[in-house]
């Protein structure tokens, strides 16, 4: 069961500014889904290794060779607020 305080805590971690209605709805919906999901915690899984890659792959090595990146102006063309050859953002410390 998730309560309002937990929903607000998780929303803050996820950087979501939920509306009041959404907080209530999310608490109810997530609780219902989690009730269903939690059954797997009853399975005996001691000593079972967690899956990392589904096909047996240990490592993926490659030569460390530089290749050209996309030009700066091409990347900045999609930015909401390009500033001085970079991404403009509000001040992180204002609040």
């Amino acid at each position, binding site marked *: 069961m998730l309560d309002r305080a937990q929903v607000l805590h*998780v929303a803050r971690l996820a950087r979501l500014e939920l509306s009041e209605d959404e907080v209530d709805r999310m608490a109810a919906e997530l609780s219902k*889904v989690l009730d269903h999901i939690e059954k797997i915690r009853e399975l005996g899984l001691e000593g079972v290794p967690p899956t990392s890659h589904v096909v047996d792959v240990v490592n993926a090595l490659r030569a460390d060779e530089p290749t050209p990146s996309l030009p700066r102006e091409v990347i900045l063309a999609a930015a909401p607020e390009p500033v001085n050859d970079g991404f403009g953002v509000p001040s992180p410390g204002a609040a």
Partner: protein
Amino acid sequence: MSELIDLTAAQAAERISAGEIDAAELFEASRQRAAADELNAFIWVAEAAPNGDGRAGGPLGGVPVAVKDLFCTEGVPSQSGSRILEGYRPPYTATVVRKLADAGAPLLAKTNQDEFAMGSSNENSGFGPVLNPWDRRRVPGGSSGGSAAAVAAGLAPWAIGTDTGGSIRQPAALCGIVGLKPTYGACSRYGMIAFASSLDQAGPLTRDVTDAALILRHTIGRDPHDSTSLEFPGTIELPNAEDLKGIRLGVPEDLTGAEGGIEPGVMANFKHTLALAEQLGASIEPCRLPHAPHALSAYYLIAPAEASANLARFDGVRYGLRVAGDEDLITMYSRTREEGFGAEVKRRIMLGTYALSSGYYDAYYGTAQKVRTRIAEDFRAAFERFDFIVTPTSPCTAFELGAKVDDPLAMYLNDFLAVPMSLAGIPAVSIPSGLSDGLPVGFQLAGPAFSESRLLDTAHALERAIEFDGSPARA
């Protein structure tokens, strides 16, 4: 040109190489048909053939392909069905889309989808729902609903989509076409806007099994840009089997029993298809996948957890929507994400963030990854006795628009039969196996990793025997 709609893509490619059809004419005819779409299957349609020639010289003959919106296509809108990426035109093209174009299948259109591939009905798209061509009051399935509806309705010769927990197979089943999820790692994920990276896999949605094999043949292979991609052992043969002599099919009681909630009409069709397989020479026996019923629970922890991390990149800084927050950076992030994401995406981000949060990681994500190991072991054991595992693809046929939008759990249960194969990373194909109350039913075959050629061969023999008639959806 009107008879073109009754050709499979492979047949169209043959006519082009025989000089009976002109590739540029085929592209234009396809383009006009796509542009007149009434199902909302497309988010973008090409205005002209690329380079004017459709690259008819390649092995795919110039037959144009529709591509799910979440594949990045250079200079062409690629929004993953989300308003947070509205108008985004990436500066590069996904590997599988580039490979298809190089092989002679130019980009025809971008198809509608559930937002960030999260959904089983296509009702979660930021660009409106897609309608099922068999009955426009019903959903096409999801999340590759636009690709499935387009191919079923003859609005595109063939298409690609992505499958994380059934998102190719389930819409293929609900629209009466073929959908293949390849082995995890068989096709590069480079340029696919990520949902759950350990599960996402590109694959074909096509009119028949031969078309699916053709697309797969030209999209597999290791890609230096995706370190989880793998060199495919061997090549993809075009299917030609006409019988199933010596093929051992296993029916997993754990999935097809009461817990699966399979509709009676779907179950009747499944049994009928098994009887056909037996007539073709296959042996059919029950088998066990004891952990498979828990796959859905594990999936709805693993996929949202990975999604919550992948979707952190949508923060209003580098691309897409920004909602001005004059106050500070975090307010800007939070407002942008609140406005840009739809309800289901927020739900999954919340679920995933919770499952990964301090104090809950081991209990949820860690446990789910252990269940995943057990599920893969179950399949490995089953494949020692059986060539393929078979189930219905979806517990139900296409449901009415709006029927499940308010009940996330009911919506998630659509994936009950598709998710175990996703967690095990193994290939699975859905072929149309008949109708139930006038709506298509899908038959799913799953095989060991990299068994695609044999899997498609078996599906092809069944397809011939089933003789499914998809023409009502193209009317």
